[in-house]
């Protein structure tokens, strides 16, 4: 009985692989992606055409959206594509942010070479993520969620740890300077930040896209769909799972490092449980196991956080309800609704609707 089930599952995986479109061709970058990237690169220059619409502040908001998108992508690599649930990715975001902040703060020549904080944060978070992935190997589903949940709750305390105070600045955190545009380019700080983050994001998406469409990505997804079947097919599941944990942490850590540069400030209490929830909702709203969905998720989380106040006012004054509708409440309600209505997230929902419309 045991063997037949395994065989059936392996068969199902094989069939799925066979019925999927041939990998190399079908997974080429779609034209609309190039269009979006091109628009993103031209966007700040539109200031001269439509000065009313493109402002430094709006570029900064888009920058934070891109940072969130990178972080959500990191979580998606782990949860969406490898099936390991993490409720504590805020921890890796924090490690990345603090790696960058401490480097910028403590090394005198670092602010001129701020871009070095990105690889440093990536390496640091990869190591931390890999190490956390080792015990996580033995955990599945609910248990892994539990362990990472504990991690998410403990992070702010860990950052305040007395021995680290010299580096992390304790409760006060670290105040930084925003990176300034190099080579005397005629860009404002926010414009330069926008390009800096955009280039990194495109590079990271390119890497993720390539990981996922190749042998490694298929192995990751096979583990998600049926670990034992993947094991029998010769995939080193332990190795893949820990490395995926590391890569995922590195992505989210890079987002953290970017946010340290963008906001020019880090403090322990901004890396609490709420941050991990934000990443989770980014994942669920955008779509589990969807690259484009990660961007939607990133945009969405920033939108909700930025418009929470307006939303709260709307509920109170216009709807006349005696509630403060916080971003947290919106997250909670959406998490519930999405699980019923669009379990694949907004991106997945749109694709489904489109397929249904086409018949």
């Amino acid at each position, binding site marked *: 009985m045991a063997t037949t089930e395994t065989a059936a599952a392996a068969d199902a995986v094989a069939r799925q692989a066979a019925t999927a479109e041939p990998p190399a061709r079908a997974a080429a970058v779609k034209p609309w992606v190039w269009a979006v990237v091109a628009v993103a690169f031209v966007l700040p220059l539109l200031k001269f055409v439509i000065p009313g619409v493109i402002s430094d502040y709006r570029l900064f908001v888009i920058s934070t959206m891109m940072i969130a998108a990178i972080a959500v992508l990191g979580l998606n690599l782990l949860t969406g594509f490898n099936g390991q649930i993490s409720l504590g990715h805020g921890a890796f975001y924090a490690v990345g942010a603090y790696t960058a902040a401490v480097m910028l703060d403590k090394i005198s020549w670092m602010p001129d070479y701020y871009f070095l904080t990105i690889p440093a944060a990536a390496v640091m978070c990869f190591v931390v993520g890999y190490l956390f992935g080792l015990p996580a190997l033995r955990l599945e589903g609910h248990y892994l969620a539990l*362990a990472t949940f504990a991690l998410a709750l403990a992070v702010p305390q860990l950052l305040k740890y007395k021995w680290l105070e010299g580096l992390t600045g304790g409760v006060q955190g670290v105040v930084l300077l925003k990176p300034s545009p190099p080579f005397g380019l005629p860009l404002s700080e926010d414009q330069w930040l926008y390009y800096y983050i955009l280039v990194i994001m495109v590079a990271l998406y390119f890497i993720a896209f390539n990981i996922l469409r190749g042998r490694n990505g298929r192995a990751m997804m096979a583990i998600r769909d049926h670990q034992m079947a993947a094991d029998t097919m010769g995939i080193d599941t332990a190795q893949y799972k820990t490395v995926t944990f590391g890569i995922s942490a590195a992505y989210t850590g890079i987002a953290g490092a970017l946010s340290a540069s963008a906001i020019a400030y880090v403090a322990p209490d901004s890396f609490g449980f709420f941050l991990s929830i934000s990443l989770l909702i980014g994942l669920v709203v955008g779509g589990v196991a969807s690259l484009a969905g990660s961007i939607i998720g990133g945009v969405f989380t920033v939108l909700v956080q930025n418009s929470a106040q307006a939303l709260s006012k709307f509920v109170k004054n216009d709807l006349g309800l005696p509630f403060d509708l916080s971003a947290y409440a919106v997250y909670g*309600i959406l998490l519930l609704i999405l699980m019923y209505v669009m379990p694949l997230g907004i991106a997945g929902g749109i694709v489904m609707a489109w397929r249904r419309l086409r018949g």
Partner: protein
Amino acid sequence: MEQLMQQVVSGLANGAIYACVALALVMIFVSTDHINFAQGEMAMFSTYIAWQLMQWGAGFWPAFFIAIAVSFVGGLTIERVILRPLHTAPVLSIVVVFIGLLAICNSIAGSVWSYLIKEFPSPFPKDTFGLAGLIGPHQFGVVLVTIVVLSLLFVFFRFTPLGLAMRAAAQNPVSARLAGVRVDWMLALGWGLAAAVGAVAGTMVAHIVYLDPNMMGGILLYAFAGALLGGISNPGGAVLGGFMVGVLENLVAFIGNAIEKSFGVYIIGNGEKLTVALIIVITVLTVKPSGLFGRVVVKRV
């Protein structure tokens, strides 16, 4: 030495709270295999209900029992309305729904009652309760109440037909259904009971940690640690685990303090409470996932 004794006893009092929450977690876990991340926030919400009733003029004990009854109905409703449709959903969906519940409970409590910290009264008389110098009146009362609740639950599960049916439904749903047990309703009942036990924990701990929407965060984490340490599949073990982590929590702080005093090196203190819980959780999960007294689950493939 006396100080150490004091720490241990007050650890037991904290442990009583953790034991209640751990038991609530286990009740849901054994019947559905779900880890209820919203348990702490549900308990917090129940505590606010009790507080509101007291604001309206009720005495402590009436408010306490009404809050428990309301929580029971609330827990039952949550199971029937929110979790029932997701019966066969993947783990991620369930976890996400729990996190959603957590966020909703937290933000509703925050918007209705505000995030300001409130005082919560203690029902226990100051002079006649407690053992002088060893344990305060409230802590003593908490231990007593917990023991009463745990005994009642034990009697319920061990000696009543309904308790037996609930255990049957948790252990082997298919056979239980064939024997005429309404498994669905048993699960819902389990949720109701879990919410009620959580309400007890919330109303008991609120005097110590003060009432605010985030009060249960650390407690939930310790309850997880306790449940895992004792064995999340074993109610008795989870209760014992809850008491153990309560004592452990205080001992760690005590030892850290002692080390700082005698060597002048700060290693660990009250500021690292959550980290200690995290370490317990991860250690137990990796070294002995079934806990000290849990049943080892053999998975059939």
